[in-house]
């Protein structure tokens, strides 16, 4: 993951600690408690953040691995006798 992906996740986790809304009794749109509304927003932003990350920060070595479709013998099968089942 690129540096900005880690940064976005860090910001989301900090925003998750919304202590400023801890005792707020305001109802957003007349029925959503403000603390709940904030966390609904975090869920939506998380979806957008992950869309950006899988679009622009997808690991390149994974796609290379896909090109090599031949299955290799597992390392345990290459070990010396008695080192693995």
């Amino acid at each position, binding site marked *: *993951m690129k540096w900005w992906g880690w940064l976005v*996740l860090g910001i*989301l*986790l900090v925003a*998750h*600690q*919304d*202590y400023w809304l*801890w*005792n*707020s*009794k305001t*109802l957003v*749109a*007349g*029925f*959503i*408690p403000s*603390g*709940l509304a904030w*966390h*609904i927003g*975090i*869920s*939506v932003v*998380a*979806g957008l*953040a*992950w*869309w950006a*990350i*899988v679009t622009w920060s*997808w*690991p390149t*070595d*994974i*796609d290379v*691995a*896909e090109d*090599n479709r031949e*299955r*290799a*013998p*597992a*390392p*345990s099968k290459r*070990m010396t006798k008695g*080192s*693995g*089942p």
Partner: protein
Amino acid sequence: MSDAIVRLLIIVGYLLTLIGLGLFSARFGRATNRDYLLASHSIGPVLLLLSIFGTTMTAFAMLGSTGEAFTRGIVIYGLMASASGVLHSFCIFLIGVRLWKWGRRYGYTTQIQFLRDRLASPALGFVLFPTLVLLIIPYLLIGVIGSGVAIETMTAGAFPGWSIFHNDSPQLDGAVPRWLGSLAACGVVLTYVFMGGMRGTAWANALQTLLFMSLGIVTFVMVARGIGGGDSIWASMSQASQQANPDLLTRGTFSKWEFCSYLLIPLSLGMFPHLVQHWLTARNARAFKLPIVCHPIFILIVWVPCVFMGVWASGISLPNSVSNDPNAVLPFLVQQYATPLVAGLLTAGLLAAIMSSLDSQFLCLGTMFTHDLFLPLAGRSRFSETAQVWIARAFIVVVVAVAYVLSLQGFRSVFVLGVWSFTGFAGLFPIMFAALYWRRLTAAGALAGTLTMIGAWLFLFARSDWGNNRKFAIEWMWGDHVERMNPVVITVLATTLSMVFTSLFTRPPAADHVAMFFPQSIQPEKSVFPMVSASQEGNQL
């Protein structure tokens, strides 16, 4: 025909449909272990999304969230749902995709096989197997208890006057008893898992995920209208929120430290054995993109209605049998505010959420027992592929029987049991993360971390009276008041410290072995401690 009988018939019809689906999917299977366990790596993005999500959401998400919102309020969404939205996708991205890569390359069917190979340590596999089984039993209990509660509540009054269906609580008299509901759910899941294997499980999960998500929204609208009683859905929701206990609309009394410590709980996803098996079914790495992006939004769709319903239930009068049992709040609301037909379908949706996790857990337990314990000990060549599948099935029956008997012991909250299971799995996350990203991790380090986690988890779980003390937390004085923290902080920290220090004090792994998993690494890392020479390679336990 009474309303309760209508609901019961719909539930029975749904359970029979699932068995039919298992039979149908079995026709597409090939008679190989790889097909039975991994659906021949044929699962595309949509099916992968639905099966991963269906497996992740269980009675914990439906019954547990509604019940906890009823007792603790909106804090429950921040504690579990929004944090999971961020961190579950993090686990799928950083653990799932990379694990899939090595699973595809070397043919792994479980995470134990990967860790045993990565660290060249058969001993680690033999320690991890009982650890994962131990941790998954509370998770299984959630589903077994939840299915019994849902069926019992929704069939109340179906057989009035029948002595076998007598219940001491007048509201539940004539209902299918919990023990029978749980038994029926276990029997149905066992049947379609046995017939359809992973392919049947993935298909059933997809169907059940669509069912419980859509029916969840229908339930929400009906309950909002029923409790609020306004002219429009908006007026009803507004009315319901204003009637609710105002303390549940804020997080006033909940410890901020404890809230923060819950951030570690979603890391448990990276070590769920049943999730790992689903990851390994992916057709290609790109299939993971859709689950990663949609997971937070799907969690929102399931959890927000449940949290609202739990909070709103505080504003109405509930019978004692419901207000004293948080697990029964959602089934009660469904029974109270939906027509018999819709209530039956909604119960099917509730069971769908529960059973879509149970099936994967059953299958992964059988897989781990056969491939990570029995065959390595008894000798793989002695058993045909058919015999291996039957060995897996026998072990599944034993574990389900144990979980079923434990479920009859009267545990109170599926939420609390779930959090304890997640606490243990989250404690193992550092080991999986290090195995994928830290070349210097040694088998001794992973083993020490695992043993430390088991010790810490058992100690803390026992201190909580095996989950019966619902308020258990790590407590300390902070100024003039007591602060609290979830025990997951202890399990994660203890495992990490034990794993890192033991790895650094033991011989580094053999360079050629590490290179199989880290192709870019040519030079092995040298030990930071002079008494351990980097040339002393081998590291096998």
